[in-house]
C-alpha cells in the first residue's frame, strides 16, 4: 500500500501505531493507591479569600501589637528610674573597690 504525505494519513498511521500503548490496570491501581494514601504535605487545601485575609491581618497585627506594648513600657520612666536609684555603686578606697551598700552596712540614718 502506498503511503502519502497527507496530514490525515500521517495522523491515522500514527494513531494505528500507538494503539498498543495503553495505560494498564496495574498502573491505574498504583495511582489510586497513591491518591488514597496521600501524605498530608502533598494535599492542597483551598483557603477561602476571607479566611486568608483574616490570617494575613492577624499576622500583620502581631508585630504592631508588640511594638505598641514596648513603646508603652519605654514611656514609663518611673520603673527605670526606680531601678537606677536602687543600683549599687562601686567606690574606690585605699587601693580597693567596694560596693557602696557594703560600706554603708550598719550605718543607717538612725545610727547618726
Amino acid at each position, binding site marked *: 500500500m502506498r503511503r502519502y504525505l497527507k496530514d490525515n494519513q500521517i495522523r491515522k498511521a500514527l494513531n494505528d*501505531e500507538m494503539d498498543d*500503548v495503553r495505560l494498564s490496570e496495574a*498502573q491505574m491501581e498504583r*495511582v489510586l493507591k497513591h491518591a488514597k494514601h496521600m501524605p498530608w504535605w502533598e494535599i*492542597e487545601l483551598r483557603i477561602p479569600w476571607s479566611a486568608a485575609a483574616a490570617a494575613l491581618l492577624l499576622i500583620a497585627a502581631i508585630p504592631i501589637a508588640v511594638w505598641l506594648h514596648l513603646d508603652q513600657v519605654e514611656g514609663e520612666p518611673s520603673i527605670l528610674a526606680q531601678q537606677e536609684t536602687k543600683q549599687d555603686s562601686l567606690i574606690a578606697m585605699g587601693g580597693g573597690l567596694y560596693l557602696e551598700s557594703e560600706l554603708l552596712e550598719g550605718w543607717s540614718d538612725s545610727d547618726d
Partner: protein
Amino acid sequence: MGAEQEMIDRLRSGDESALRQLMERYGNEVLRTAVLLLRDRHLAEDVSQDVFIDVYRKINQLKADRSLRAWLIAMTVNRCRERMRRASWKRLLFRERLEEEAGAAIGPGSEGWAVSATIQSIIMALPLRYREVIVLHYYQDMAIADIAETLDEPEGTIKSKLQRGRKLLKTSLVEGGWRDEALFEGQSNS
C-alpha cells in the same frame, strides 16, 4: 451541568472513582503523548502516573475557562520537559556511555532506517522543540492556538516551529518510504 464539569466537581470533592474514570478516559492519550515525547516507555508510564496524581492533588488550580483535557496534556508536556532536563544532567555525567549507545542507534539516513521507520520512530528522532509541536498537532490534533496555550508560547513561534518540524518530518518520511502525492501523480502521468 456538563459531564466534564461533573467530573471536575467530583475530583474536587476527593472522589477516587472520578480519578479512575479520568484515567479510563484520558489515560492512553496521556501515556502515548509521553511515549512520543520521552522515547522511553517506562519513563512515560512514570510520567503518566505522576500526571494523574498531580491532577487529583491540584484540581483546584484548574481555571474555569480551561478544558480538563487541555490541562492534562499541558501537565504531561511539562512533566516530560522536567524528565528531559533531568536526563540531560545524566547525559552530562555519563557522556561516554550514551555516545556509544547513540552510535549504535538506527537514525535517519542509516542503513536500517528505511526498513524499520515507523511514524513514531521518525517523530521520536526529531529534536524536542519540534517534537512537542508535531506530537500535539498530529497526535493530539490540536490547532496552533491550542498548542500555543498548552506550551505557553506565542502563536507565531508555534507556527514557525510547526512549519520547520513538518518539513523535517516529511523529509524523514520520504526516506522511510512515504511518497509526496503530487510528485507521485506527476511521475505516473509522465
